[in-house]
């Protein structure tokens, strides 16, 4: 057992102690955090410079759709 092994085992034991529910929370936290971040993006970075101004032209909507599906998947499976 080298110091690298000892360190690796130490890290492994820490993560072994994390319940799977908390791990799921980490996955969901990342996705929810991104979802909120997308909602706060300024309009100039999500709307086209010219052309259509309909709701489907807003990238924020589609990014939220993609992330919402992810949140549902990781909450359910």
């Amino acid at each position, binding site marked *: *057992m*080298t110091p*690298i*092994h000892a360190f*690796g085992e130490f890290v*492994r034991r820490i*993560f*072994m102690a*994390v319940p*799977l529910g908390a*791990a*799921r929370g*980490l*996955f969901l936290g*990342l*996705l929810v955090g*991104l979802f909120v971040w*997308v909602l706060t*993006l300024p309009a100039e*970075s*999500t*709307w*086209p*410079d010219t052309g259509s101004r309909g709701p489907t032209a807003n*990238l924020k909507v*589609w*990014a939220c*759709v*993609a*992330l919402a*599906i*992810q949140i549902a*998947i*990781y909450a359910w*499976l």
Partner: protein
Amino acid sequence: MRDPLGLVDYVVLFAYLAGTLWLGFRIGRRVATGRDFFLAGRSLPWWAVGMSLVATDIGGTDVIGVGGAAYRHGLAVANFEWIGCVPAMIVGAFVFIPHFWRSGVATIPEFLERRYGVGVRSAVALCWLTFMGCNLGIMLFASAKMAHASLGLDFRDVAIGDMRLAGCELPVAIVAVALVTGAYTMAGGLAAVVYTDVLQCAVMIGGCLLVLVFGLAEVGGIGALSERIAERAAGSGAAVPPLIEHNELILPVDTATPFPWTGVFFGLALILSPAYWIGNQAIVQRALGARSEFEAKASYVWGAVLKNVIPVIVAVPGLIAMVLLPDVADADQAIPLLANRLLPQGMRGMFLAAFLAALMSSVDSYLNSACTIFVNDFYLRFTGKPIEGRGAVWVGRATTGAMMVWAIGFAVACTRLQGSGIYGVFQTLMSFFQGPALAVLLGGLFWARANRHGAFWGFVVGVASAVAMFTANQPSVLTGLGWHPLFQIAEPFLYFSIWSFVITVVVLAVVSAATPAESADRIAPLLYHRRRRNA
């Protein structure tokens, strides 16, 4: 015994191949300058780039291999398409891709030279070029081998398992696919690659969808599928413990699969996936060819929406196979056997076309991007010639041809090797430099103090550390040293990427702090926050 492929199957296959060639050559007539060839003249629409992103990411081996992995390890393999893609694509869409697009670069290494210098550009470009060159051969070889062993496309004795196709030797099949792909890629460059990818993406999704729909119909729906997997797990007792995990995405640290949640979250979601979606030239290049900054962003968002569907059509069939065909010895045969069982004559041609579409859409992208790196980061960089010239097109076409010949040679050489671990080795190779490349890229974008010395040595030491971890984890080395394995899971490439990323960050920070800073005026436009503030 199944019916052989019928006339309709051959018509579908022929129509797909003919359509691809026609489209590629038609687009090739518009290529006039190097910028047309390597960046499609910055004329690509968001929907085409988004579909191309997805098609490039899914290779021929994925269509069969992901289902096989789901059959073997369960749904956790879908993490690679979900948390391993969607978050990085969304962040890439709004942070990195517009930044690169505005910079006007043709390659990521070119951006790194502007930020750090030619040493970092050349080191990163060399790594990508080496990887892509080898990966091209491996993709051809692995797909042909998989087709030979699993699809029943027995190229040697004309028998095609339950299906039959005009047979040929395995190397001939490699050459045939490579020549068709190489021909339209040489003719049309990035535009041909992207527009044929659109066709290939549609064919790929359609073909895989057939297996999913017919499979779910036979099993009795999603609910019945989940119940039958659970029944199998309950009935298996302790003899097959991983079966219990087949319905789960998040697996414990001590799982018997290569997908513990720690590796998936820290290695895949936070390092490998961002490195792939914002640093892989074969991926980013098509967004750099988008006709506006907004369309570059939109392409990534559209790709992320599409990505949600992919595991459903490539991984879930593996679970269906587990229920309908529980005794398949080689998991990679699960999907082809399932297709054989489920699809009527006339639809098998569609599945074969989906397999070829997935293979060709990846090969053409890596071919075009390897060529772009060679021409842009080495030939044009060191000869001083401009990209805006007819000469660059011909050099690009010649390089594409040479790369194709190299890939064919490499693939054929692989057929002479004994053992089947080479594909896994090359998957691992990618994890050697993705973490270090991401660390250098992030340092360059977000930390003004990061300099050329720190980036260069951080990258070199990071790659060396990943190679050292891989070497130290080999059974022969472990036995020789009398060590226990460094990692407790099989194929720990996710962990290589984590540690090599961390080591690169540390070396980058220490060396940068100990050496002179870059000129603030020179790097200011390349830093994310400075540029955003000035916008």
